[in-house]
């Protein structure tokens, strides 16, 4: 089959590789009908994850049709009473791999599954404990082959795969795999009370879904911060008020817009490759370049300082290592709460399907580019460089 492989920093190739096989009893093989490039794939593209290996198959946003099931499904002996599945089912695949039987899965903390990361020791050395395995997202989270390919092997398929009813197009449900639930969970993590003001740093795809989710969850106002005009426009189309951080001083502007109080909750939907301005931006870029700091937290710092007293800081943006100069004084003295994590995708699938079927949202609004799988290298380049007003790319195998 054809698959999109990481071969080094900014080196993406479409290669012919062997088709995936069933390895474990609860596996499924999915023939992929649609897949996407995620903003977090750009961290890998840009070489910020040291546990990528040449030849790794990328991609964690994919859906398709079940073409093969492991032995657990044939003999009706599905462990943990997972879902029944059949060849031919049309499914979306959560990017987090979850066993359904551990302490964390039992508490709906799916992205913290104890049993899906074969390289847990690696994560434990870095972080004390390991999160769940993830598709196509480095060896730190399991080294699973990803879904920017014609086929993928899905472990614990009975727990992960989510059947899609007839009548919905791929583009309406593809983002259930990651960015829609990620934006939704990030909004939920804001602990929104009716009429709250939520400020969101980053108007990429996750930020866009977070804006719309915040309104669904009762926010009165959403203020979206970015510098890319088409992203700010899309945020505005979603009902947000917008701030271009290259044009205004964000902290002052937020105070002004909220009567001096500050937003009730703030969200960092940017993560470890934030673009800072001035001396602070230079400091982080320099330290990151020589690996004295792995992650650049400019958006997070700004968000903490801007948040109102007693407010909540929600962090869907991806971090992998260490950050410098966290304003802990502001965080502590203002009595803030921080909520974060990889997305517990499984928890939100039915809720989001209902939202789409009710007509509350059509997730396809975020797509700006549709390419063939073979064009993935070009896709990574235009997405990374934000060429051609690119916000979200869907690839067709």
């Amino acid at each position, binding site marked *: 089959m054809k698959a999109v492989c*990481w071969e080094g920093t900014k080196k993406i190739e479409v290669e012919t590789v062997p088709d995936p096989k069933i390895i474990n009893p609860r596996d499924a093989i999915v023939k992929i009908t649609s897949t996407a490039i995620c903003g977090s794939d750009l961290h890998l593209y840009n070489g910020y994850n040291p546990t990528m290996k040449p030849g790794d*198959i990328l991609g964690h946003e994919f859906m398709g049709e079940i073409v093969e099931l492991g032995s657990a499904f044939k003999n009706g002996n599905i462990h943990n009473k997972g879902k029944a599945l059949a060849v031919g089912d049309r499914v979306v695949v959560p990017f987090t791999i979850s*066993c359904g039987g551990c302490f964390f899965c039992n508490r709906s903390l799916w992205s913290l599954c*104890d049993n899906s990361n074969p390289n847990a020791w690696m994560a434990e050395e870095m972080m004390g404990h390991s999160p769940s395995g993830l598709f196509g997202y480095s060896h730190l989270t399991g080294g699973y082959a990803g879904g920017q390919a014609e086929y993928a092997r899905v472990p614990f398929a009975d727990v992960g795969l989510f059947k899609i009813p007839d009548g919905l197009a791929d583009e309406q449900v593809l983002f259930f795999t990651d960015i829609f639930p990620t934006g939704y969970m990030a909004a939920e993590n804001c602990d929104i009370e009716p009429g709250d003001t939520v400020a969101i740093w980053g108007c990429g795809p996750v930020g866009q879904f977070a804006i719309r989710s915040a309104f669904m969850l009762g926010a009165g106002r959403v203020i979206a911060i970015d510098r890319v005009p088409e992203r700010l426009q899309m945020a505005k189309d979603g009902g947000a008020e917008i701030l271009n951080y290259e044009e205004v001083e964000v902290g002052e502007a937020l105070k002004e817009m909220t009567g001096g109080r500050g937003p009730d909750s703030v969200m960092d939907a940017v993560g470890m490759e934030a673009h800072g301005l001035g001396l602070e931006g230079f400091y982080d870029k320099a330290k990151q370049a020589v690996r004295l700091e792995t992650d650049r937290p400019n958006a997070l710092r700004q968000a903490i300082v801007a948040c109102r007293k007693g407010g909540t800081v929600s962090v869907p943006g991806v971090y992998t290592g260490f950050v410098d100069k966290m304003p802990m004084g502001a965080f502590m003295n203002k009595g803030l709460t921080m909520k974060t994590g990889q997305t517990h995708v499984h928890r939100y699938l039915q809720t989001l399907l209902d939202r789409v079927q009710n007509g509350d949202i059509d997730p396809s609004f975020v797509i700006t580019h549709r390419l063939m799988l073979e064009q993935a290298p070009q896709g990574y380049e235009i997405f990374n460089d934000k060429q051609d007003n690119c916000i979200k790319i869907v690839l067709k195998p």
Partner: protein
Amino acid sequence: MNQPIKVEKTLTINKPAAELYRFWHNFENLPHFMKHLKNVKVYDAKRSHWTTSGPLNVTVEWDAEITEDRENELIAWASVEGADVNNSGFIRFQPNPNGRGTEVKVVTEYKPLGGEIGNAIAKLFGESPKQQLGDDLRRFKMLMETGEIATTEGQPKGHNRS
């Protein structure tokens, strides 16, 4: 030199102590999740024969005996005289007081030998015996909690290795 090497590891497994005890008590199950253990043959209630497979086709074998056995609580074993390598270990199953699974602690100890066989054993047990024990125990947990062991061995990857 030749100091015994002792490693230990504790994990919580989301299953009742009795179920974990039963599975482990049949030593013939151990090669399912212990990476370097090739085969265990149980002779009787006490005695068993263990065979490991190491690098360069070196195998290390020994007879072991259960030295302590408390139902659903603890199993201890030790190699008997004439073993290629003297080793012992125990596993303890302790129900979490708040009903949140079973805390499982494994302690193993072995006496490294000098010479050729000693080197082979050192390789067999790897650079980090603690990590190896931790990985084995984690695979036991996976098998008990999910019925299988998470792996990526055998999956496709690109070939244009740079």
